C-alpha cells in the first residue's frame, strides 16, 4: 500500500494507475476512492473509468487531453486522496439456498464434510466486499468468503448457468449477472437481477459496495422473482 503508484499505458486512449500487484481490501479502497475523486474532478476528455482489484483503468480522448497531462492530474489526485470518506453501501441479497439454481449445494456439503445447513450458515454469516465489476455486465467479484468454503472451479465449465445463481470459485464468491457458461460451483439463487438493461438503474452493484446474503423460502423467492421480472430492482442499498 505504501509502494509508489505505477502508471502504465493501455494504448493511445487509455492508461492504468496500478497501486499494487496483490488483492487487498485497503488497496482496493484506494482504487475506488481514486475513481470517485476522478469523477468529482470533472476533467474534460475522460470517457470511462474502470476500478479493478488493484488498479484503475482510465479511458480518455487524446483530442481533448493527452495521456501525459492526464497522468499528472491522476498523481495529484492520489496525493490528496481521502479514503476514509468513501461511503460504503450495504445490500441485503435474498437467496433461496438449494433450489433449481443451487445444483452443487448437496455435493459441496459432502465434499466439505458438513451439512448443507452448516454450509449455508457459513455462506450467509459473513459480509462480502465488491472488489470489482467485470467479465460480464454487473458481474461482481466478491471478497470475504469463509476459507472453509474456498472451492476450486470445475475443469470443464457448465454451458448454461442462469442469471441470479449464487456461487463460488476459488477464494471468491459471486452472483451470476447474465445467463452463460461458468466453471463456478452454485449453492442457490437470488430473485434479484443484478443486470436488467430495460430497468433504471440497469446495474445494481458497484465496486466498494458491501453484501450480506439472507436466506428466504420458496414462496418469498417466487414473489420477489415476479417483481424482478416486472423490472423492479427488488432490493435497495443501505448507506452506512
Amino acid at each position: 500500500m505504501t509502494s509508489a503508484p505505477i502508471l502504465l499505458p493501455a494504448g493511445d486512449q487509455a492508461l492504468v494507475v496500478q497501486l499494487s500487484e496483490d488483492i487487498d481490501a485497503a488497496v482496493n479502497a484506494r482504487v475506488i476512492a481514486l475513481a470517485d475523486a476522478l469523477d468529482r474532478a470533472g476533467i474534460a476528455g475522460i470517457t470511462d473509468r474502470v476500478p479493478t482489484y488493484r488498479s484503475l483503468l482510465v479511458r480518455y480522448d487524446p483530442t481533448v487531453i493527452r495521456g501525459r497531462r492526464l497522468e499528472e492530474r491522476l498523481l495529484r489526485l492520489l496525493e490528496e486522496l481521502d479514503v476514509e470518506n468513501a461511503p460504503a453501501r450495504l445490500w441485503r441479497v435474498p437467496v433461496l439456498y438449494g433450489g433449481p439454481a443451487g445444483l452443487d449445494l448437496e455435493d459441496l456439503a459432502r465434499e466439505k464434510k458438513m451439512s448443507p445447513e452448516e454450509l449455508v450458515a457459513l455462506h450467509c454469516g459473513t459480509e462480502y466486499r465488491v472488489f470489482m465489476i467485470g467479465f460480464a455486465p454487473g458481474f461482481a467479484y466478491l471478497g470475504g468468503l469463509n476459507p472453509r468454503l474456498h472451492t476450486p472451479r470445475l475443469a470443464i465449465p457448465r454451458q448454461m448457468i442462469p442469471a441470479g445463481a449464487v456461487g463460488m470459485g476459488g477464494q471468491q464468491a459471486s452472483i451470476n449477472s447474465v445467463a452463460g457458461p461458468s466453471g463456478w460451483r452454485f449453492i442457490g439463487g437470488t430473485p434479484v437481477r443484478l443486470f436488467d438493461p430495460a430497468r433504471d438503474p440497469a446495474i445494481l452493484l458497484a465496486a466498494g459496495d458491501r453484501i450480506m446474503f439472507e436466506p428466504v423460502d420458496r414462496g418469498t423467492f417466487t414473489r420477489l422473482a415476479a417483481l424482478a421480472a416486472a423490472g423492479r430492482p427488488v432490493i435497495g442499498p443501505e448507506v452506512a
Partner: protein
Amino acid sequence: MLEVLRAGPMLTVQDRGRFGWRHAGVSAAGPMDGPAFAMANALVGNTAEAAALEFAHLGGIFRAHAPCRIAVTGGTAEVVIEGEPRPAWEAHRVMAGQTIRIGAMADAVWGYLAVSGGIETPILMGSRAAHLRSGLGRVVEAGARLPLGAFDPRGPALACRRPHAETLAPRDIRVVLGPQQDAFSAEVLERFASARFTVTTRRDRMAMILDGPQIPAQRGHDIVSDGTVAGSIQIPGSGCPIVLMAEAQTTGGYPKIATVIGADLPRLAQMPSGAAFRFRPVPRDTAEDIWIAQHSAERRARLRLSVTIARRWRA
C-alpha cells in the same frame, strides 16, 4: 421502415457505441470499423449519432418501405438497387418498394449499410448498439422490420473518394507496449515486434485470435484481473495472442503485452483470415499524434463529400 428480406452473417444494428458503462462490466460495442461506419452515415446525411447496420462479408437483401437514401461502406461491396448495380462508398436514392441487394465484399470483413434518418430501434442504456454477449439487442434476421428516423428528402446523395485505398497495401499494425510488457523477457518482446502473425478464422466482434510464434510470459499467464480495452493484446497460456475487439469483456486475467493503436484497430478488424502482418511498437505520444491527425483527416473527408450525379437526375 426497412424490411430485411435476407440477412447476411452477423447482421446487427450499431451506433457509435455505448460509452460510460465499462465500470459496470459493459463494453462499448459499436462498429468494428469506426471510420467506415461514420462515412456511411455522412454519405446519407445522418448525424454521427445515427445507427446503421453492420454485417460480416455479405449484406443481404432489404426492401425500403418509404423513399430514402442508402450508402454501403466497409469494402468494395456489390450493391444492386432494383436490379441496377451501384457503387459502394456513395449514397443512392431508393424509392418505396424497391429492393437493395448487398453482395459479398472481396476486400473487407465488416460492411455497413446506412439509411437516411438512421435506424431507430429502441435505445438501451443510452445506445442502440447491439452487444450480443450482454443481451443488448440481437442479430437481425430475415423478416425484421427496422424503423427509420425522419430525414430531409431534399438532401443530396453524396459520394466520397474511396478512403481505404492507401490502407489496402500491407502495412504493419502499430501498438503501444504494455500495460504488462514487464511480464515478458526482452528476447520475447523482440520476437513479438519482429515476427509475422496470421489472422485466423477464430474471430468475432469480441476478439481475434492470431497464429504466430510462441510468446511465453516469464512468470505464468495469470495476473490479478484488471481493465481491458478494445485493442488489448492478451497472451494466454497457449501463447497465441488474443486481440480484444468492440464487444470484448471489460476485465481480464491474462497479461497484456501491448495495445493496438486506435488508428490501426479498424484495419486489423478488416484483414481477411489468413492475412499475415507484423506488430510495430510506437511510443504512446506518437500513437496519440497519429490518432489526432487521423481523426481530423476523417472529419475533413466527411465534410468534403461531393454531390453525386444522382442529384442531377432528380432535377
